[in-house]
């Protein structure tokens, strides 16, 4: 696979200008320039291929027209709980220079692929959440609105020993636009010993937007990182949510929900690496497809040689509401240690006809009955959400799509 073309409107000068405007330290400028340099040589993220078929066509992304690096604009509201710092990336560079320097790029190598490098070179917004030792924080929210043709964001979450935090991040589009748009978001979580993070993310971008997000956590000893990933908006979304269980007894849950309609394409991926002893992972994804929407799912459970006494579970269920829709799935187990209990399952099907019949026989209108069953289908995902506000938002968006 050859890498995508370097957009013509992108040069060292562009990157220097972004960095200067934000008055960034030298190390960050260097990291951006290195990422820019690397673009020529690195590939787009891997996409599943089967004989004669490529599940997502990232090559078709035309960065020349999608990316407008010097005119990025967003409006982001951040709310913090007591004792926790929720800062813009630029403010965090002032307040916690060393912390940001050591956390940036520590779980996601900016040069990992073409899209991460592009994001690292060009990001102009982002948030740093810093939870000091022993602090318990609830209801941290980061609500962003994208107001430009392209927007690149970088988020860091650092939890110190025995702290906890629940975070809700949402992204939607501002004003209407005539052009296709591109949104990119990298999220790195460094979860310290015995800390707890729930990171909920709700993507409801306008349906002319192409979106890429890579979220990855480095989960320490006794720490837990739970992800909740909701995808409703965008034209095409490529979303990777990943946990590296690097400390003994680390745990993670990756919970995903998507609901596609019209021509939407969701390429959603959940991956976990068990790198230490006594670690546990549970991956749960539920998706609904209507009209000509298409979903592509890859789930990876990778158990390393030294991951003794591992438990790892994965479930993926897709509900198809229309004949024109398409659901592709590939749940993968890669097991290097026999002291493992691992399983995965995946199903694809339509709304259960017996359930539907039962409800219609109880005098519920067929369409209403179907909608109730779809809402019910998402319950196992909704139940995992700690933040009420997030659960309500997601429920509302699902209900709105069914109307």
């Amino acid at each position, binding site marked *: 696979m050859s890498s995508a073309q370097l957009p013509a409107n992108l040069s060292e000068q562009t990157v220097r200008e972004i960095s200067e405007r934000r008055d960034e330290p030298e190390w960050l400028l260097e990291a951006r320039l290195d990422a820019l340099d690397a673009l020529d040589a690195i590939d787009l993220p891997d996409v599943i291929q089967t004989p004669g078929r490529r599940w997502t066509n990232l090559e078709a992304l035309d960065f020349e027209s999608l990316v407008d690096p010097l005119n990025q604009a967003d409006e982001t509201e951040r709310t913090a709980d007591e004792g926790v710092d929720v800062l813009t990336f630029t403010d965090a560079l002032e307040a916690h220079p060393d912390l940001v320097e050591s956390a940036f790029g520590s779980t996601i190598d900016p040069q990992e692929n073409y899209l991460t490098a592009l994001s690292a070179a060009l990001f102009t917004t982002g948030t740093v959440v810093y939870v000091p030792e022993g602090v318990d924080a609830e209801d941290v929210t980061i609500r962003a609105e994208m107001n430009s043709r392209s927007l690149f964001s970088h988020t860091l979450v650092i939890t110190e020993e025995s702290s906890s935090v629940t975070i809700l991040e949402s992204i939607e589009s501002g004003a209407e636009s005539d052009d296709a748009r591109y949104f990119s978001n990298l999220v790195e979580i460094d979860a310290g010993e015995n800390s707890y993070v729930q990171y909920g993310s709700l993507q409801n971008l306008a349906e002319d937007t192409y979106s890429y997000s890579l979220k990855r956590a480095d989960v320490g000893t006794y720490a837990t990182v739970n992800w909740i990933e909701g995808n409703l908006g965008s034209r095409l979304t490529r979303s990777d949510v990943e946990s590296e269980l690097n400390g003994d007894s680390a745990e993670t849950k990756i919970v995903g929900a998507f609901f596609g309609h019209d021509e939407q394409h969701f390429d959603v991926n959940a991956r976990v690496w068990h790198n230490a002893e006594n670690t546990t992972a549970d991956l749960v994804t539920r998706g609904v497809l209507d009209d000509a929407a298409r979903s592509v799912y890859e789930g990876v459970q990778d158990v390393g040689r030294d991951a003794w006494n591992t438990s790892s579970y994965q479930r993926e269920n897709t509900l198809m509401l229309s*004949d024109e829709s398409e659901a592709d799935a*590939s749940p*993968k187990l890669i*097991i*290097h240690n026999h002291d493992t209990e691992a399983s*995965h399952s995946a199903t694809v099907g339509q709304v259960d006809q017996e359930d539907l019949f039962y409800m219609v026989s109880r005098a519920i209108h067929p369409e209403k009955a179907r909608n109730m069953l779809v809402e019910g289908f998402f319950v196992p995902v909704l139940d995992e959400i700690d933040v009420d506000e997030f659960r309500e938002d997601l429920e509302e968006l699902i209900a709105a799509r069914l109307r």
Partner: protein
Amino acid sequence: MSSEQDHLKETDTEARFDFKKEETSAFQTEKGLTEETVRVISEDKDEPEWMLKRRLRALEQFQEMPMPTDWPGQPDLSEVDIAEIVPYIRPDVDVRAGVDDWTELPDEIKDTFDKLGIPEAEKNALSGVGAQYESEVVYQNMQERWEEKGVIFCNMDEAVQEHEEIVREHFMTKCVPPSDNKFAALHGAVWSGGSFVYVPEDVTVEMPVQAYFRMNSEGMGQFEHTLIVAEKGSEVHYIEGCSAPKYSAFNLHSGGVEVFVGEDAHVQYSTVQNWSKNTYNLNTKRALVEAGGRMEWISGSMGSKATMLYPSSVLKGRGASDNHITIAFAGEGQNIDTGAKVYHNAPNTKSTIESKSISKDGGRTNYRGLVHIADGAENSSTAVECDALMFDNESTSDTMPYMEINESKVDVAHEATVGKIGDEDIFYLQSRGLDDDDAKQMIVSGFIEPITEELPIEYAVELNRLVELEMEGSLG
């Protein structure tokens, strides 16, 4: 177990690896692969012009196609150097199309197959046996009562001459074209030997038809072709067994299997593969299944250094069905990458895939499978179940299923589990007086039982014996 079958156990499966014969071949092509090699093979077999053309076209395609190298977790094929492979060896037997009386075979070949227990198997339970030694079929027999009903079971080379029209229509055209993959193309260029089975309309062959393939020469490639045409309403069970002795150089097995399952016909294809552990086993096996037809693939992959094999069924007609049962056992130095492919291209089609794998002593197993449901294949269902057993943390067990669903009125389910042998199970058996090794062996036998119960008794016995040998190897 009856005394007739005891020899199968006593033949000592281990001996199949350790004896090898002095090579005394009548004819052998030069190493490597050129147009000249292909022409020589075709000429030596006195083939019609169209077959030579197909071979040459396949050779062209082979040379154009890249080696598969970018599959996630695939076996390392860098050692597979086609230039080092001798594609065609004809044993020193006078009768070109094989002999049909066992006693006419040269002593040396007879001795080899005796050790493998082939004539005994025929006596016991099978309606036809073909045995291939190197590239040529040396022995072929079909019980008379099936012959009378019009059933054909013969050497593939003979079929090209004697049943030219059927072969010309079906040979590497609709089912496995050489363009399918690099090794199918290689196969198309240098294929030799194999079996042709033709079952006329509404004929049921009640006893299994069996073929045995063996490589005895070092640095040898075996490229046998199996073509099965089961007409409307017919039924047949074909069994293939494979082995090769140990040599230091590597061997390449790249067989091609094409099965045509007619309307309402039923074909079962069973394989017990026990190639020596220097063999690269890169096969293409596919069935085209018409309306109401049923295809069953039963495979046990025990041998080889690396296997890449994904028997596939294309369910073309309404109500066609498929059943895959596979078992893979990878010991030290082995990478068994196997699975199943099913294309649901018509309404009311059904598939079930059951895969079991065992990895130990650094061996690697991978279930790689694809289920594709086309738009319009409504009321189709598929159920995939993969279970893996691991013995140690040197070994690797991967599961990589791919599902492509283009139709909403379907029922698609995939399930997989990976785990170690349960300590409680072992404890229970030990408390009943078994030692640790016997307990493990018994658990493994139970684990693969769904596969063994599908096989005729002597194959089930052989499979169990092979598993025992693999297990014992770990204890030495």
